[in-house]
């Protein structure tokens, strides 16, 4: 069985996923993936975010219109069009910041893992094109073979709330992390190399 594995650490911010997302037939013309600089002033680090497809989706629970449904195979669908009243509860409640409300259309839209593709055994558009394979869609066996130093987790901690998801995120095997403690990063800044003042000076130390 193919699954979604994400390694934002690999992301190069090229926006292929964003450009390709709008080519999918379930949301053609609308890109549902998020890709942003974490803080461009200090880093080129980027955060690619697709729907994590929670086992118990907060978005669905807080939906006053009962418009968000999870399929039997665990995919949290975009809001049912006849029901969604564009209240933005899901936008504000999603712990991963995924859904978007299209105000003009009076409806919410979100990543549905390219249901037109994945429901017939194809990969989602974003993961197919992703040049860094920060977005990877494949089997656990393929993952094991291609990413010997990575291991998937699908639990995320937000304060006292644990969220379990269908989509996996890759963490280092050596770290033995069982979950990603998202809110522990509240005061952290971008990650990566820096060019500091002392480059020039240190040469003459």
């Amino acid at each position, binding site marked *: 069985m193919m699954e979604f594995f994400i390694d934002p650490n690999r992301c190069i911010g090229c926006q292929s996923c964003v450009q390709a997302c709008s080519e999918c037939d379930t949301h053609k013309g609308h890109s549902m993936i998020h890709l942003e600089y974490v803080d461009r002033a200090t880093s080129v680090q980027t955060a690619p975010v697709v729907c994590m497809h929670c086992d118990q989706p907060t978005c669905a629970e807080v939906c006053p219109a009962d418009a968000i449904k999870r399929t039997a195979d665990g995919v949290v669908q975009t809001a049912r069009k006849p029901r969604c009243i564009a209240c933005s509860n899901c936008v504000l409640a999603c*712990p991963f910041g995924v859904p978007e409300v299209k105000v003009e259309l009076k409806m919410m839209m979100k990543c549905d893992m390219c249901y037109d593709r994945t429901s017939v055994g194809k990969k989602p558009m974003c993961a197919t094109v992703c040049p860094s394979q920060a977005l990877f869609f494949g089997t656990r066996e393929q993952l094991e073979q291609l990413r010997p130093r990575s291991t998937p987790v699908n639990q*995320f901690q937000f304060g006292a709330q644990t969220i379990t998801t269908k989509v996996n995120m890759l963490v280092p095997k050596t770290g033995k992390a069982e979950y990603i403690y*998202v809110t522990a990063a*509240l005061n952290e800044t*971008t*990650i990566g190399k820096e060019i500091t003042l002392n480059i020039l000076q240190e040469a003459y130390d």
Partner: protein
Amino acid sequence: MNLPIESIKAACWGTLVTIALAILIVFGSRNLAHFDAALVAYTFATLFAVFGITYRYAMWLQRPPTAMYFKRGWQVFMRPQHILRNVGVWFARVTQDFAFNTFIFKRGKTRWGAHWLIMWGCLIAIAITFPLVFGWVHFETLPGDMNWYRAYVFGFPIFSFPIHSLFGFMVFHGLVWAAILVIAGVMIAMRRRMRDHGAAAVQQFGEDILPLVLLFAISVTGLMLTASYTWMKGYAFDFLAILHALTVIFTLLWLPFGKFFHIFQRPAQLGVAFYQDVGEREAQAHCRRCNEPYASQMHVNDLIEVERQLGFRYELQNEAEHYQRICPRCRRSLLAIAQGRLWHG
């Protein structure tokens, strides 16, 4: 058997509204004087549908988020300083959203065409059939002039018109026009559902195809009835009448469960719009990480309360207090940072 309190409440509401309708039928038809006994099956199906719809609506309203926004929607609508403006805006929005479906137009022209035709077809049909079935409306020829009809509502005479006028023709064939609108709409919708790859991936028979089939069946059997008595001297009329009744009754019974329930949910859109209007005018919530405004303070507070009621525990033990006070954009960044730390800690 232990029924949850919500169900009991909802059942009470359902019973209450159903009884109210029954009383209205008796009263409106002048103690069933104008009630057509042949339509009794329709009436009972309607009563069942009303119970079901009310039950489901009441259940729905008791969900924490729905309850919150139902209450809030009315509160903000009724605020004395906004009420006049709100009433004006209400009319504008009802026209735009409900009469013209402008938001659906923006989603797609064929989608809009289908919905608008089906919606108006159904509305016309409902406006004609229900009052007739309940005996709320009936027609009598004017005493002394067989060429004029008088319409009675709840037994009171309202207006008269010549039978062989264009107006008369339009009124007596109202269901024909409704059926044509519905059939046209269903055709457009079915064509889209058969061709569109996106729709094909997510549609379900019960949720998306069955309603179209039912509407089509009602309309076609109805038209066949008309054809039968107009041109074919009533050929197979009884059979067609039963067939038509079956399609209608099935639809009525199915009404509380399927896609058509959105007709009753959808007006909540208006409440949400007023909630958002007021939210925009009042204090904004600023993200506790980036300090940018991202939603109304009211909305964030309400959502925190809803999440508490639902049993979520997004509270934080630091100055941010609650994860809900972090904006969606920062949440996305935090995920990348938290994962990145594990690699480059």
